């Protein structure tokens, strides 16, 4: 038998019809995740054409982008940023009711960022195909799934037929050798990778993350890594499932129990690249050389080690335009830059381990008086778990804001946003111009780096002494 990559095994196992010169493959989709922003027009299309949802049980919806990160107000209402946001959420409720789709509503135990709740509920399975009208669907690839973002037309295709028309992408092996140093996280690893291969470096490819540095990561760290595969332009990012994956999934609501669990694990073990499988391209990265990373520009590839200096222009006009927007110049260090806002959250870094890392920094310290800090858990479950562990007290005692689950300031749709000119360190995934609010300036970093910046009120190396007045 021809050796196959993980991607090829997933692809072949989901072919309803193979591709031909004139027609793409028809690929079966196991799990379709939905949210309020990219689904309304797809449901409307179904209605206009008199179509049903083919498999409502393969669809799961939540609300996360337009939802407030503040609890209900004194009148018992959610403080939506405007009527349009409120209406969009109401439309999702109506659509899910009409078409028989499970919806994790605002305030319910299952609600949260779509890419946080899927794995948390055990809905994300190795060997599965998973789509969502959201580019960060690549997150689910951490479980050995083929998971990618689609547009609203394709959301309609999957609702109506459970299938997508796809041309087979190329494969890119990213071999990560060595071990991460203390204080260096999956976020730093993926920023270093994107800086190496560029924001278009993965275009047309599905990335498989491999090697000892990847195997050593926890499930939540693997999700952070795969989450940002799209920031290198990749169609998807994936990691073959192993015992780390299985022990994360075991006992969760969405996975089989008893004998069926063991059978499932045996089946899932098949979904790994064969030893002799070949990839269209291979990139290597020595994880032991990666240091805490920080972006300085307006795309995620414009990243440097925290204590590095902004490089000279190598990219033509883009670089100069980005630096002008960021109010930085080539050759300078970011250390010591005053930070107005720290945002800890998003589908990249809002899971319980991210919050624990941030809390370790905040414990016994205070947020600098000049820095506003938001901690936004990725899901209701993460929020309650953090509260069981007392992390909320640590954040609140430090002077940070402890919010409700939402995409929040990552995408700035719900009113959580930067003011023009403000500089933020964010644990999110995009530092595009205006991403966190018009005129806002974003530095992407890990939760540890972000938390240190919050207590210092400026960009600083993790080991630097905190001014005494900020200690509780």
């Amino acid at each position, binding site marked *: 038998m021809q050796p196959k990559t993980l991607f090829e095994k997933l692809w072949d196992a989901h072919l*309803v*019809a193979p591709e031909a*010169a*004139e*027609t*793409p493959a*028809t690929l*079966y989709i196991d799990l379709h995740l939905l949210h309020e*922003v*990219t689904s*309304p*027009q797809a449901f*409307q299309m179904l209605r206009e054409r008199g*179509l049903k949802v083919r498999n409502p049980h393969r669809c799961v919806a939540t609300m996360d*982008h337009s939802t407030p990160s503040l609890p209900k107000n004194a009148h018992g209402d959610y403080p939506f940023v*405007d009527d*349009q*946001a409120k*209406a*969009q959420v109401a*439309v999702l409720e109506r659509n899910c009711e009409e078409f028989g789709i499970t919806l994790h509503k605002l305030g319910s135990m299952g609600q949260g960022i779509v890419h946080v709740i899927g794995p948390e509920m055990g809905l994300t399975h190795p060997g599965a195909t998973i789509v969502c*009208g*959201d*580019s960060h*669907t690549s997150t689910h690839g951490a479980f050995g799934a083929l998971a990618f*973002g*689609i*547009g*609203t*037309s*394709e959301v309609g*295709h999957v609702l*109506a*037929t*459970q*299938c997508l*028309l796809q*041309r087979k*992408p190329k494969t890119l092996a990213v071999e990560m050798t060595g071990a991460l140093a203390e204080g260096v996280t999956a976020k730093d690893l993926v920023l270093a990778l994107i800086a190496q291969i560029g*924001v*278009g470096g993965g*275009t*047309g490819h599905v990335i498989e993350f491999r090697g000892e540095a990847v195997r050593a990561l926890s499930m939540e760290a693997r999700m952070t890594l795969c989450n940002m595969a799209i920031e290198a*332009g990749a169609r998807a990012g994936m990691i073959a499932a192993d015992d780390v994956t299985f022990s994360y999934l075991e006992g969760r609501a969405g996975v089989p129990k008893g004998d069926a669990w063991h059978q499932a694990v045996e089946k899932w073990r098949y979904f790994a690249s064969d030893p002799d499988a070949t990839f269209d391209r291979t990139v290597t990265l020595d994880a032991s050389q990666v240091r805490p990373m920080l972006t300085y520009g307006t*795309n995620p590839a414009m990243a440097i080690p925290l204590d590095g200096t902004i490089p000279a222009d190598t*990219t*033509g*006009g*883009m670089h100069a335009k980005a630096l002008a927007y960021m109010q930085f110049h080539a050759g300078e260090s970011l250390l010591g830059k005053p930070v107005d806002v720290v945002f800890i959250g998003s589908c990249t870094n809002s899971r319980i381990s991210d919050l624990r890392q941030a809390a370790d920094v905040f414990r016994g310290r205070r947020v600098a008086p000049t820095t506003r800090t938001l901690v936004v858990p990725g899901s209701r479950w993460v929020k309650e778990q953090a509260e069981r562990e007392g992390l909320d007290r640590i954040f609140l005692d430090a002077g940070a804001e402890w919010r409700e689950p939402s995409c929040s300031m990552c*995408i*700035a*749709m719900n009113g959580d946003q930067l003011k*023009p000119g403000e500089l933020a360190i964010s644990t999110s995934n*995009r530092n*595009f*111009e*205006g*991403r966190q609010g*018009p*005129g806002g300036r974003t530095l992407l970093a890990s939760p540890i780096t972000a938390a240190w910046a919050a207590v210092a009120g400026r960009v600083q190396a993790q080991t630097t002494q905190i001014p005494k007045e900020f200690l509780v």
Partner: protein
Amino acid sequence: MKPFIKLTSHTAVLPMAHIDTDQIIPARFLKVTDKEGLGKKAFHDWRYLPDGTPNPDFALNQPINKAAKILVAGDNFGCGSSREHAPWALLDFGFRAVISTSIADIFRNNALKNGLLPVVVPEDIHQHLLSRPGVQVSIDLEREYLEIEGGPGTRFQIESFARYCLLVGKEPLDYLLDQDPLITAFETARA
């Protein structure tokens, strides 16, 4: 689906590389539940100054670029999110084609499903187009050929099924719906 066969228009040029979907349409305008009128918000934060008046320095605000149906953009156009609002906004603004040296995967897929043609051209043709904003360009989808008035021409490629759908105005969903027996057979075999 709006058919796309041939298009002749002058170009508008945005030469920056990596124009992301947050620039094409900022996220705060995604709270709509329909597709209409998004052209008003296309490139909003580049197009308007903080006081809401048009930014005179932004290329698409300049008279030479008015009514251009072809956008020539820097490398890796449309990177970022999966929002189909990006091609909806560009179409509503008046564009029917985007030309670059590379176009991000999800954006390209979304554009093709809406009759906005994503055309990838070689570096030399791209340079020629970037240096001549407003030049007349003809795009022939049937022949997969792009011609610059008074300049060079080039072949380009559009995925064969998407090309067929664009030429005849067929909805890809109809093709998928016709595969119902195959889909049922797949589901039965796996059950």
